[in-house]
């Protein structure tokens, strides 16, 4: 499954992604291969962070790209980038799996041994460079948030907790959690402006 039409464009060029979606809808497996090369590491990271178990995280990766393949028709570019759509699918599938497993992902995630694993940069240097650069920006943005805001965001995003559940988990008033999430998200929006749309 090799892309028969490799592009010299930036891998995250919107026009390029639009063509990829068209090819995907035309059941072009090479297009899926390209998407997989671009986003599988993010999808895998999300799944592993949420579920905490490598085997289940791998299932989520396959399930997510299977869903992308099957439901390419439902992708609406006006509602967000292709990356956003794929990551949202992955998060949703991982949270579904988590609910089934009824595990404590935070505790078990600590046990996941990722040491020694490196991004497969040798196979995809362009992807690795992109990830390395953008990841640094996102990490810096997250690190700039007050700990309370970051914690509220991570509980909601990676554990799938609602605002009420986050408030209960942290023993804080609901209004406080609303404020923390609003402040955290708006600050990230400012800081990650350069990444959105790329």
């Amino acid at each position: 499954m090799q892309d028969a039409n490799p592009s010299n464009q930036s891998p995250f060029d919107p026009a390029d992604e639009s063509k990829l979606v068209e090819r995907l809808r035309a059941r072009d497996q090479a297009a899926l291969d390209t998407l997989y090369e671009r986003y599988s590491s993010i999808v895998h990271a999300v799944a592993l962070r949420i579920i905490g178990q490598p085997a289940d995280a791998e299932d989520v990766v396959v399930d997510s790209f299977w869903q992308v393949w099957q439901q390419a028709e439902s992708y609406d570019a006006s509602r967000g980038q292709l990356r956003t759509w794929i990551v949202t699918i992955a998060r949703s599938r991982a949270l579904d799996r988590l609910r089934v497993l009824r595990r404590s992902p935070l505790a078990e995630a600590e046990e996941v041994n990722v040491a020694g694993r490196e991004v497969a940069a040798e196979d995809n240097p362009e992807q690795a460079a992109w990830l390395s650069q953008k990841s640094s920006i996102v990490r810096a943005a997250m690190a700039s948030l007050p700990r309370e805001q970051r914690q509220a965001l991570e509980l909601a995003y990676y554990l799938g907790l609602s605002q009420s559940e986050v408030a209960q988990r942290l023993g804080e008033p609901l209004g406080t959690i609303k404020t923390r999430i609003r402040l955290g998200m708006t600050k990230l929006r400012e800081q990650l402006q350069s990444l959105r749309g790329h």
Partner: protein
Amino acid sequence: MDAGKFTELAALYAIGALDGEELREFENYLRTASAEEQRELRELTEVSALLPLALPPSPVPPHLKARLIARINDESEEAKPSPKPAKVLEFTPRRERFSFFDWFNWQPVLTAATLLLAITSGLLLWQNSKVARERDQLAQQVAQLSQLNVASQKQLDELVSQTTKFVSLAGKEAPNANAKVFWDTTHNEWVVYIFNLPAAPADKDYQLWYITSDQQKVSAKVFGTDAKGRTELRIALPQNVAPHIAATAVTLEPKGGSPQPTSGLYLVGQVGA
């Protein structure tokens, strides 16, 4: 919704934390949200999708792509018409896993589902027939009520007509009884309503009489009453008698009536000018 409130709800929504009534209200609001609000929500959603980039590097096991391809090939093979060729996996075989759908015996379930469908269809047909019958009965009742309404309206028109005379009969032998006569002088018809006559003995009938101005008594009608002593009579007046009627009365007569009254007057009323 003001901008601050929208931003707060959009941030919670984008990260999947909005719940309860607020979630429903926000999703309803989004249907009519402005372009600016939709843009803000889209940006916040993209921000949430960037969060995973902060995670530690997570190399993907190479065999996963093979699993994905195998799954897609399986789909392609299954979509082809039979006879089905043997499946050839291009990459590493996927991990052996038991699938609920593989081992579960669907035959009894399908049989039960078919039976249930048949029963349900039969029940629905029966209910449909029943509803149709009830609908026809109701339509018949409506038609009857409509006819009754027309008759009642005609009767009311007759009663209030300027050509209708009114005669009241009072009880004599039967003090509690009374009667009302509505005389349509145009068509010379009487409509007589009688109330509270005592029950007639088995060998007797009541009889209504015209009493002319020269005191002749002409039989008008032999009748019975219901359990409460009531009845309604419609009588066409004889042309030769109508102009001479001065009074009317009711007597109790032998079964079938008499040529002339043989009892006292149970009801009597004078016909006015």
